[in-house]
């Protein structure tokens, strides 16, 4: 039986950074099966989790004073909540791992503690039929597990989802690091567009003007992927594309005020570009929050996307027009 450490090593921390920035995120898995923390006996609780290593690490580091069995199920390296939504964290998979580990020979009780956020994938009432074990939902956060185990039930606080500034901040690296392809495409596109001038194509103008666009793009990215998540509850409007557009417009004003004067068409272009980009990036953040419904995101995208497409198209037209005025 593999015994797990309840403190994270330097390697785990580097792994966490890799997963949070996206570099190792899609292949950060551990082998499914039964593990133990501390010195569990046949009466110790069985905690079920996903085989995304970040989920597993989050669980085990809370168990330094707890003797427990950890049943890791195969969710293809996806976290608990998303796996439950996609159907891989299911009662069938839990039952399969229970039987595979021959859990009935290891513990004398017949109860599994499931993360509350697996409830959208697991119909707990079916578990007993499938594997002889009763499923019971624990708290949302593993940090509340010791308290849950001591008290025997979850209170309102353990069952309520939160989205604190810290919980929002850890999502930022992935939002930024996932953009490198788009950034590269923007660089190439704007280098070409910036060079178009009365003398057909001027590499020197291209370079100078694309540096300006890059700075503007950088500002838009910071606004959409850093400022929007951090300031989320305080930005006016409920739709994310509007939140991003409002902050983007503010950033654009600040950017244009700070910059060396440029002709009016270019000013308009930069304003539209920063606002549109920031709006799009903020809209993308809906997928990372724990309170936006799929219907709602679809609804706001039918409004946000046309705005973003129009503002970007106009930005490109005004940018090309710049040297001709």
């Amino acid at each position, binding site marked *: 039986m593999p015994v797990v450490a309840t403190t994270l090593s330097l390697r785990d921390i580097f792994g966490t950074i890799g997963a949070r920035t996206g570099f190792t995120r899609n292949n950060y898995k551990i082998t499914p099966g039964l593990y133990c923390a501390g010195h569990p006996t046949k009466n110790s609780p069985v905690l079920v989790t996903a085989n995304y290593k970040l989920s597993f690490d989050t669980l085990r580091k809370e168990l330094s004073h707890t003797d427990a069995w950890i049943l890791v199920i195969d969710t293809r390296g996806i976290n608990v909540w998303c796996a439950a939504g*996609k159907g891989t964290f299911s009662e069938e998979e839990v039952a399969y791992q229970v039987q595979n580990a021959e859990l009935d020979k290891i513990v004398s009780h017949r109860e599994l503690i499931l993360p509350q956020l697996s409830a959208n994938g*697991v119909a707990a*009432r079916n578990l007993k039929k499938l594997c002889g074990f009763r499923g019971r939902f624990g708290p949302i956060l593993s940090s509340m597990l010791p308290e849950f185990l001591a008290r025997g039930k979850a209170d309102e606080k353990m069952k309520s989802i939160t989205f604190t500034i810290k919980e929002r901040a850890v999502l930022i690296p992935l939002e930024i690091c996932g953009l490198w392809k788009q950034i590269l495409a923007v660089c190439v596109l704007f280098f070409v567009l910036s060079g178009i001038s009365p003398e057909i194509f001027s590499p020197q103008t291209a370079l100078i003007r694309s540096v300006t666009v890059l700075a503007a793009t950088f500002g838009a990215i910071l606004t959409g992927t850093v400022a929007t998540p951090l300031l989320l509850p305080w930005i006016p409007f409920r*739709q994310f594309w509007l939140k991003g557009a409002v902050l983007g417009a503010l950033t654009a004003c600040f950017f244009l005020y700070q910059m060396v004067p440029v002709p009016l068409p270019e000013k308009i272009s930069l304003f539209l570009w920063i606002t549109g980009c920031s709006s799009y990036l903020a809209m993308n953040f*809906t997928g990372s929050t724990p309170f936006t419904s799929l219907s709602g995101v679809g609804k706001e*995208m039918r409004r946000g996307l046309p705005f973003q497409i129009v503002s970007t198209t106009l930005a490109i037209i005004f940018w090309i027009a710049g040297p001709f005025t």
Partner: protein
Amino acid sequence: MKGFRYLDDTAILRYSEDKCIGCGNCELVCPHRIFKVENKKAQLLDQNSCMECGACAKNCPADAIYVNPDDGCGCATYIINSWISRFRGKAPSGCGC
């Protein structure tokens, strides 16, 4: 959930009090705490806080709750991909998350 509200009258959540047997599973699993069992019937307290995760419907033994069954993860990339694939008549390619 304090401090955060999303769009009103948008989430697809239908609850039939007639079918409810008062087991309390919905109250137990909802991460936004929008159900409460009173007098052996669940009460829907705040429909607009629903994020369509589907935990209540999945764990309702009486089939009294219906939630938007689309299993996308709710990110913009997924929705764009599903629109494109509907337009091209192919199965959605997912979003990588």
